[in-house]
Structure formats: C-alpha cells, structure tokens
C-alpha cells in the first residue's frame, strides 16, 4: 500500500508541473523566454547641400525573424581623447528606425586627422538585449571641375578629406559614381577612381536630355564608404541637349486667331467656283431675255 501511495505521490509530483505548464503556456513562455538579441546598423550620409544624416536601424531576432524594435531609445555619443561626449538621444519609430540630422554648420568632435569616433548604443530592456555600434567618420569634400577639350566635355571631381584644422588632403583610389539627376532617380553615366591628387575625370556624352536650356544637374556619389559613408555632391551645367518639357494643351487646330492659309484658299476657290457658275447661269437668262426681245 505504501508503495502504491509513494508511486502515486511521486507520479503526481512529476505530472503536476507538466499539467501546469500545459494549461498555462503563457506563464511558461514568460518564465522560460530569453531576451532577444538586438542589432544596430548605422549609416552616414552627407547630402549635396552639406547637411548630414546618421541613419540608425535597431533590429531584434535572428535570420528571417528579424524585426524592427519600435520605440527603442538610442544614444549617440562621440569619443574624443578618451572623453565621451553625449550628442543625442533618439527614439526609433515603428520600424525600428531613427534618423539624426546634422546641419552643415554643425561640427562633429574630431581628432587632429579629421576622424570622428561615434558610438550608437541601445541599453535594452526586459525584452531586448543591449547593443552598440561604433562608427568612424571622416569628412570629405568633393569639388566639380568642368572642362571642354576639342569639343569633348569632361567632368572632373576632386576629393579631399578635411582635418580638424580645416586643411584638405587628397583622397586617392576613391571610387566615385557620376550620374545626372532625373525626375525620379539618378541616371548613371559612369564610374571613376581618383588619382594621387584626389582627381578623377569622366567624358560626358553630348546627347543627355537637359531642360529647355540644356541644364543638367550632375551628381557625384560615394556609395557606403567605410570611412566617408555615403556622400553626394551636385553641380549644374548646361551640357545637356535642350528639351522643352512644357506640356502644351492638345492643339485644337482651328482655335487660332487666323484661319490656316490652305483653308482660306480652299474656301475662296469653292465659293469662287460656285458663284461663277451661278452668275454664268444668270447670264444665260439675260441672253434668253435678249433673245426674246430680238424675236
């Protein structure tokens, strides 16, 4: 009997928690869940007008189950000479994304070589683990140079990095994409690489459609560079083929001040022909009357 009681007691002791867990899976999940791992991605953009943008994406999960972490508080700090400078605290949107805009006149803390060390960090919460990402940025300046030689048009770009003193130094072996701004995107024209002077040049075709005056907006772009991020610079030039894009109302051909010449001539000929024959027949009647008098 005791043996039976013991068996029942021990069985119950084993099965009870299983039943409990089966009946309350949520409790099980909560107690058993681990914090989700999070990741931070950062992108640096320098726009054509000199304004900059740091784009941050905070995601959680793994593999195909990655998802954005909404309302996550992200801190942006800069490190300079072993000291940490708090730059901004921003919150991610519903997709887990956040953007920080820096005006062109805002100077990021940088060392004497012009390097700026940024760190983006997320402290995590009950659900998500913390994450951080460092970002090194070097400010770069792109200058356009337009040249025409033997009727051939060349677009040159000079790439210089800028240090803390504002001094420029050429950047070599830098790949730069050249394109022309269209209505919805950039039309690629070519890719070039800078030489030791930070200079690169590309021949521009003559037949690129421009505006009514042939104006084109050239775009030089460094795409997702490890040091410079994504940098864009634009410049205008009238090297395009002039195209008038004005949408004229559909011509109502006769809604004009004056009738077309062919119409005036046609009406004149028709009327002249018709009335000539009318008066010709009237002349026959005149002759008829005269013939009556004569007889």
């Amino acid at each position, binding site marked *: 009997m005791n043996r039976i009681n013991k068996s029942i007691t021990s069985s119950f002791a084993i099965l009870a928690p299983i039943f409990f867990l089966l009946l309350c899976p949520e409790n099980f999940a909560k107690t058993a869940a681990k914090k989700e791992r999070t990741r931070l991605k950062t992108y640096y953009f320098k726009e054509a007008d000199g304004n900059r943008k740091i784009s941050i994406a905070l995601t959680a999960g793994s593999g195909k189950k990655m998802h954005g972490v909404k309302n996550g508080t992200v801190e942006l700090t800069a490190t300079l000479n072993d000291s940490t400078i708090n730059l901004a605290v921003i919150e991610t949107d519903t997709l887990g994304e956040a953007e920080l805009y820096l005006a062109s006149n805002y100077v990021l803390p940088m060392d004497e070589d012009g390097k700026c060390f940024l760190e983006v960090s997320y402290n995590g919460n009950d659900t998500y683990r913390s994450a951080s990402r460092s970002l090194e940025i070097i400010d770069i300046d792109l200058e356009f140079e337009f040249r025409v030689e033997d009727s051939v048009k060349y677009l040159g770009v000079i790439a210089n990095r800028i240090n803390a003193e504002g001094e420029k130094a050429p950047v070599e072996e830098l790949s730069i994409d050249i394109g022309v701004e269209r209505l919805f995107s950039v039309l690629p024209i070519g890719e070039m690489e800078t030489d030791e002077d930070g200079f690169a040049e590309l021949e521009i075709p003559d037949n690129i459609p421009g505006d009514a005056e042939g104006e084109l907006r050239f775009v030089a772009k460094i795409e997702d560079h490890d040091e410079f991020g994504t940098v864009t610079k634009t410049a205008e030039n009238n090297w395009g083929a002039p195209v008038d894009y004005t949408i004229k109302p559909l011509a109502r051909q006769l809604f004009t001040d004056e009738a077309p010449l062919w119409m005036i001539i046609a009406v004149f000929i028709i009327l002249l022909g018709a009335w000539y024959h009318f008066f010709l027949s009237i002349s026959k009647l005149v002759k008829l*009357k005269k013939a009556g008098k004569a*007889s």
Partner: protein
Amino acid sequence: MNTPAHVLMKEFIPYLEKPSAKWYAWVAILVIIALFGMYALIRQMIDGQIITGMRDNAVWGIYTANFVFFMGLSYAGALISCSFQLLRIKWAKPVLRIAELITVSSLIVGAPYILFCLGRLDRIHFLFTHGRIQSPITWDVIAISTDLVFCIAFLYFTHIRDFAKLRDASDFNVAPWRKKMYSILALGYKGTPVQKKYLHQAHDIMAAIIIPTAVIAYSLLSLLFSMSLKPGWHSTIFSPYFVVTAGYSGLALLIVVMWIYRKNRKLEKHITNLHFNYFAFGLIILTFIYAYFSFSEYLTQWYNQTKTFETLLNNLVNFSQFGWLSLFHIVFAFIVPVIILGFPWFRSINSVTLVSAFIVLALWVKRYLIVVPPLENPFIPIQDVRPEYVNYSVSWVEWALSISGIAVMILIFTVASKIAPIIPVSEVADMHNEEKPKLLFKTKGE
C-alpha cells in the same frame, strides 16, 4: 394655240385662279400657327432662354434637331431634282417641282432654327462682323446661304416656261397684277430654239452646282457635331452618315407630299403608281445604306466603349431615358420599311406613303437622339448644378416654334402651288415629244 402644254395648263388653271374660301381658311389656320410661333419667339427674346428647355448642360435641344432635320430635307430635294434634271430622267418630271419646293421651303424654315439657339439673338450681326473662317458655324452660314440662293434660283428657272404659259393663257382669269408678275417672271420667254437652249444651259449649270453645294452644306452641318469632343458626336463617318440620312428622310417626305397632292389635286394621271414604285425602290436601298451607317456608328462606340460611351449607350436603350425614342426610331426607320417595302404583297401606294411618313418621323427622332443624349452625357460631367439643369426637356416655346415651322413649310407649299402648277406643266407636256437629248459636253467618237 392648242399645244399639249396649253391643254395641260388648262387642267391646272382652276387651281391657280381666285382662291376659294376654303383656301383662305386653310391659309388663315397656318398663319395663326405661324404667328403663335412668332409670339413664342418674341417671348423667348424678352425672357431669355430660361423659358426653353436648354440649360448649361444640354445647350441644344429640338431647335437643333429641327435645324438638322429641315436641312436634310432640303438637301434631298435638291439632290433628287438636280440629278434627275442632269440625267434627263423623264419619268420623274411630274414630281420634280415638289422636290424643288421641299428644298426651298425646308431651307427657309430650317435655317432660322439654329438662330433660336442663340442666347443673344440681337447680336446675330456679329456672325458677319466678327465671323471666323475657321469656325464650323461660319462654314455653315456661308454654305446654307449659298445653297438657299442657288436653290431659289433653280426653282425659279424651272418655273420660267410655266410662267410664260400662264402669261400667254387667254382663259386665265386672275388679277392684272398677277398677269404682270407672270410677264416679268417669264423673262420674255417665247419658246424659240435659242431661248430653249439658253434655258437648258442655265438649268444644267445650276443643277450641276447645286448638287455639290448641297452635299458640302450638309457635310458641314455634320461637322458642327463631329468637330466637338463629345461622345456620340466626335465621329469620322458623320458627314456621309448625315448625307445618307438626309437623302433617306427627303425621299420619304417627297413620297408623302406626292401622295397629298395626288389626292388633293386629283393628279393620279401625272403622279402615278410608277413614281411610288420607283421611289419605294429607292427608299428600300436607302434603308439598307442608312442601317449600315447606323450599325457602323453604334458598333464602334459600343465595342471599345469608355465609361462615358457606356452611359450614353445605356441611356439610349434605357426606357426611363431615351429607350422609347430609340425603339421608335429602330422600328420605323429600319424594321417596318424593310418589311413593307421589301415584300411585294405589302407594297401599295398607301402603304408606301404611310411607311414614308413614319420614316420622316423616325428620322426626326433620330436627329433628337443625335443632339440631346450626348449633351446630357459629356466626358466631364457638369458639377454643382441644379438637377433640373442636367437633363433636357422640351418647353412649350420650343414646341410652338417647331409646329409653326411645319406650318410655314405647308404655307409655302400652299402659296407656291397657287402661283404656279405643282407639276412642271411645260416639262411634262414636252416629255413625250422631246427631241433627242443633247450631250452635256463634247466627247470624241460617235
């Protein structure tokens, strides 16, 4: 003198002499109806177009339908009389004057209808002072006025020989002023070979020029519609379609008027079964041509229809909209003519005339269906407007002017057939003893 022409003229002289009381009563009724129309027009000029059914959306109504309808009749009359004259078709001579009178009277009556659509009729002279040669309206004014002058001249030419006969008729008891009028209008015609030659030449020249003028005039009329970007109007086949419709309605009316005069004036001897038979044959051919054009017109609209076309076509078959009118048109312009005219055992003078009368009515309805439904269904519907302004409904003013137009047309016939015989007596008398027709122009060979 007792020539066949004089003998024949004697037959008609009683109709030309002093009018009877019955004639005066008939004229009085027509004048009263015409005056009622005049009153309606004056009211319209004083009160404005608000007393018509025309509004911002449907800016045209039965005035325009009448305009197109009467112009069509005039074209057909001109085509029949002039082509028969040029082709020297003898059997049709007794009815050619009726055709010519249809031409002139329908031109006189029809042309003013387009003016009634004008909001400021007092500015009508602007059409001439500020007219633009590139406007279809200007083309119409030029073409219709030219056509009117030519047709009146042609009508007069065909009367000259009869005027001479009436001038010379000794037993013709009319007022001296009428005798003098005949004398003036006869232009001293005495039937000499030279005068005959000149008259024939004048006839032929006018006939030759009226045919293209009438075709151009009616084609231009169709351009008033087809030049507009409206569903149901903007069509390339509108010009020939209009011309065919005109011929169809005009021939039908000619048959009706032939029947009336045949009965009224007892002209069975001149307007014979042969005329009805031949014209019925022409009518059935025109029925098929008209059906072909109509089918082409509606098929192309229906096949690749837009939303607007779909609405328009739905309204044309919807019995709460234009469905009954469409059905009337289809039955009496296509089905009944094919049945009655197509099968010999249905054909008689009376049945042909009855069918013709319904064809005339059906083709008036067709003109209404051309004008009004497209205006009520524009590509861009009118916004923020009173519901009663969207659809067109005929007002008493428009009915009055329409009925008075018919009265005026009948009045012209009544008066004209009092001035000269309704059949060209001299032509008909010469029909059987005419010398061999001369060539219209010289050709090499025999």
